[in-house]
């Protein structure tokens, strides 16, 4: 079973990477890029076969390790 976790900075938290990418895109001549935010995507392959159990386990992984909940939000997607 596969799980995908998106970890993104909370709203209002400074994103230095996004800021730098935005200005680099401007430098490359891409106009009209109003905001850039950079996050992580983590793809997990799990032995678990029950979607609900998988979700519960991945949510726990997010809280304990994958996301830094002080500054980051996370979203879990489970696919068969």
């Amino acid at each position, binding site marked *: 079973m596969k799980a995908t976790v998106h970890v993104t*900075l909370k709203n*209002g*938290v*400074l994103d*230095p990477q996004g*800021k730098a990418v935005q200005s680099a895109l401007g430098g490359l001549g891409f106009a009209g890029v109003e905001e850039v935010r950079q996050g992580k995507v983590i793809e997990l392959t799990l032995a678990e076969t029950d979607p609900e159990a998988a979700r519960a386990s991945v949510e726990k992984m997010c809280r304990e390790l994958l996301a830094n*909940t*002080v*500054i980051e939000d996370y979203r879990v997607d489970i696919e068969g």
Partner: protein
Amino acid sequence: MTEPTPDVIAAHGLNEPEYAEVLNILGRAPNLVELGIFSVMWSEHCSYKSSKKWLKTLPTTAPWVICGPGENAGVVDIGDGQAAVFKMESHNHPSFIEPYQGAATGVGGILRDVFTMGARPVANLNALRFGSPDHPKTRHLVAGVVAGIGGYGNCVGVPTVGGEVNFHPAYNGNILVNAMTVGVAPADRIFYSAAAGVGNPVVYVGSKTGRDGIHGATMASAEFNEDSQEKRPTVQVGDPFTEKLLIEACLELMATDAIVAIQDMGAAGLTSSSFEMASKGGMGVELALDQVPMRETGMTPYELMLSESQERMLMVLKPGREDTARGIFEKWGLDFAIIGRLTDSGRMVLTWHGETVADLPIDPLAQASPEYDRPWVDTPAPAPLDEAALPAHPTWDAALATLIASPDVASRRWIWEQYDHMVMGDTVQRPGGDAAVVRLHGSNRGLALTTDCTPRYCRAHPESGGAQAVAEAYRNLSAVGARPLAVTDNMNFGNPEKPEIMGQFVGACRGMAAACEALEFPVVSGNVSLYNETAGEPILPTPAIGGLGVLEDVERMATIDLKAPGQALVLLGG
């Protein structure tokens, strides 16, 4: 305007007598923006209200001291027309909540204190205390703090050349992250923060302001409790890349004669920087807050005054130099905005799209902040150890193995290898010796640097422990062949409202003062961090000392490694 409710006043950390003083100063009730400003200015963190009385007892002068405590950092003459600018500062609470960013922004803050004064930072050090190695959080905290210090310092390109680490259960819920920066400037080109010149423009440079750490300065002074985990204040994220650009841009502008005064926006951001600059210069200020570069939409004057966004500076320029300055900051890709001017009113007037949102007298706020003579009890001198009651002496081999395996003695290589300790090409003595030695660029002279404190001594007897920390710093500098010149300190203690804790603080100050006096080793800068407690459990009293000395010839520096077989080992001292 509606008067703030008692709840709102309490949430701003002002007690009843303090709020009464606010009413007395204003002759009316403050609005929310004004209340926020008072709360920040009178927080322990900014006002030193519990510690001021005792800090004044530390010796701060010597013929080579150019500037002692009171500015962004201390300045000493190191000969050859050069000055060393240095200071240590704590980022304890933020680092416990988010170790990487907390430690990183701590490094960023202390760097700004130093380059604000016109010095190019040449070395970073740190003094760290963690809980017991087997406490479940310790590993994560150590890894995060070390990575954060490296992540910031390595990127800005300032070598992290030394530091110290201890482990003790008293820090399980309250680690200490003290960061020190040393910079070098021409002795006659030091920049200060006192504003001058009616009509001169007040200029904002660096990063945009966001809603970072609103109330962080008050948080840093409030005792930690179990639900701090839940409240999770907005932690600031550091941007070392912007800091690097800010260093280069500021030093480039400082090479011209455009700047009248400059101050970094540290804890309490725009509030403390603007009040301090105005108060030191006896000026008034008008700021148009709508001109402040903003990162988010919908920000309010309250948020702009209290934001702790990093990598920002405030300057007063000479008239007509705006374009020179703007050109330099734009070249480095940084924000630049003229946000106000100096007046002779002695008042801080803040406007928002033309409307006045705060009007406060500057000196009463900045200078008449509360000063407490907190009750304290002396820590009694410990009874001599009863030798008979000690466990039998282990074999020498076993004793040695125990010592070497102790977390307080074990090699720190794992830590310093994560710090770029060689960038700038002048680290002539790397971490691992008694003191780091950084060559003064382009010469054969050098600075020796160390941080020291043994908290268990300080707990046993704060006065001896404080004196010992100073003496150890002095010895470490002497051991590499340097002439010790001056110290910076970071006083980390528990809740000063408890007489025993206040007694530890007083004792440590007495010991430090005596040692500094005896050694002609004055305190030129420092920082105080109080309320380091979790659930009523205080940390060990930890007056971290950062020492600086000078070597006339780095080729004659002494190092710790044994050089050849057959040489004699000599024990000196008693």
